[in-house]
């Protein structure tokens, strides 16, 4: 079983970041998140197990944390409202007057903590996604790593998989992610003098 073998091997590198996926729902069997420095090590393990490279790509998560924060705030606010309403209703049911209802509502609303806005701006991230599969037996392994959006750097794996060369160039084209140690990180699909990265979320036509 390739899956077990690769799970054991990868568990050494990233023990807590392994997640088995359901193929019918996700299309992959294993989802591994590693840090940028662990990428080469993890890919070497996959190489040793005879995996082939399917693709490398990126995802720009611009505003992900901000949106998450907003969602959290909205959810908390809604929760507070609900709690307030419930408290007010309780008081009303008990026969309390309007003022008592309001006081109870306020009290209950204050009881729900609303996440505070962070002091520093949100740290924006990009994700590099590596897809590997095996010829002998179906076993798609997704390897992910997150890099800061301000300085997106990942070590290259093109010395392990020469096929990664073009995929990394393409990812560099589209996202501006630097693959450190790549032999020739020039634009592949974009014009030679392209200085823009079209798949970044802040790039607009």
């Amino acid at each position, binding site marked *: 079983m390739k899956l077990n073998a690769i799970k054991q091997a990868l568990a050494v590198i990233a023990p807590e970041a392994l997640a088995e996926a359901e193929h019918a729902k996700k299309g992959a069997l294993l989802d591994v998140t590693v840090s940028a420095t662990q990428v080469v090590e993890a890919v070497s393990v996959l190489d040793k197990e005879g995996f082939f490279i*399917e693709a490398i*790509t990126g995802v720009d998560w611009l505003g992900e944390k901000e949106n998450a924060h907003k969602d959290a705030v909205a959810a908390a606010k809604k929760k507070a409202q609900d709690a307030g309403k419930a408290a007010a209703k309780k008081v009303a049911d008990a026969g309390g007057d309007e003022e008592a209802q309001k006081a109870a509502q306020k009290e209950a609303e204050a009881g729900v903590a609303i996440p505070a806005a962070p002091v520093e701006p949100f740290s924006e991230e990009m994700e590099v*996604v590596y897809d590997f599969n095996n010829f002998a037996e179906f076993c798609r392994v997704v390897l992910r790593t997150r890099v800061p959006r301000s300085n997106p750097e990942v070590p290259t794996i093109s010395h392990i*998989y*020469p096929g990664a060369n073009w995929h990394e160039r393409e990812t560099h084209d589209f996202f501006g992610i630097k693959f450190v140690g790549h032999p020739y990180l020039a634009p592949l699909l974009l014009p030679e003098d392209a200085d823009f990265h079209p798949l970044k979320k802040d790039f607009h036509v």
Partner: protein
Amino acid sequence: MSAFAQTQTNETFVLNLGPQHPATHGVLRVKLVMDGEYIVDAEPVLGYIHRMHEKMGENRTWAQFMPNTGRMDYLHALAYNHGYVSVVERAAGIEVPERAEYLRVITTELNRISSHLLWFGAFVLDLGGFSPLLYAFDDREQILDLLESVTGSRLTYCYFRFGGVYNDIDENFAAGARAFIKRLRERMPMYHALVTKNIILMKRLQEIGPISEEMCRKYGATGPVARGSGINFDVRKHEPYSIYPELRFDVPVYTEGDSMARYMVRMDEIEQSMRIVEQALDKLPEGPVMAAKAPKIIKPAKGDYYHAVETARGSFGVRVVSDGSNTPYRLKLRSPTFSNLSLFGEACRGMLLPDALALMGSLDLVIPEIDR
């Protein structure tokens, strides 16, 4: 400046093969460093027909991206349709009626035959034989007529929908498809006698452009390229989707790894596809061709999803990242020829120019699909 600037000496010269060259099928450009007629180094230069489909996807609704998929690989458009609808159905959890899946497989396999026929003609044309191209076109026209009668167009079909297909086949289709298969079965021996067994062609392909199993793995080559190198890898068997598990077909594998092996894989695949179409026509169930519950506006749950299909050129995968809205957050299209071509630079080192072109032809390049 180029990737191989350091290898140049006074003895070599640089030859620009393309972007307008008869053998590069479109707008591929290959920078060749040549020593006489021997290739010292080769670097494919891409991007001449780059359209940034992935960005287009982020600016369109899920359904609006559908026409784009057929325009990546215009020769096997339905398989790309299939890959995309499958991943969205996986993401949104849409069930597809059985009849629709059968129709998808029938049309996709017919489309695969047409793609292989065109490749066959164009490949022999690369090698200098002109007539087989037009014989292959004669047969291909019949498929296009059949597919046109179902989908309404001849090349960029856009026939599949989330939850089914665009419309049902008409009453003449099944008979037409069977008649076509009968006709092609009769023509295949002619192709083999005229081309496959021709001594000139054999000399041009045998032991030319060997690609090893290890090389396929390192470069991620799939499809007939991998199968010509002895790798039994076909997404239809490996990671079964649609109704392929219910159909009986073989995966042709040749171990030689040369251009002839890749040629034979595709020729055998035509026969296997005919088998699949016949079986699917026999088993074709009655019923709706569109899921009754398919939502009109697709909003898949948050998360990312992957789906691979076997196209005429290899494993085509779509990774979609959904943020729960009606447009994809990120849409990655893994095109098989991109990986297949990436090994060309290494494989053609030390070869003669005509042999390198035979190798390039045997990779079956469709440039819009590489550049996307």
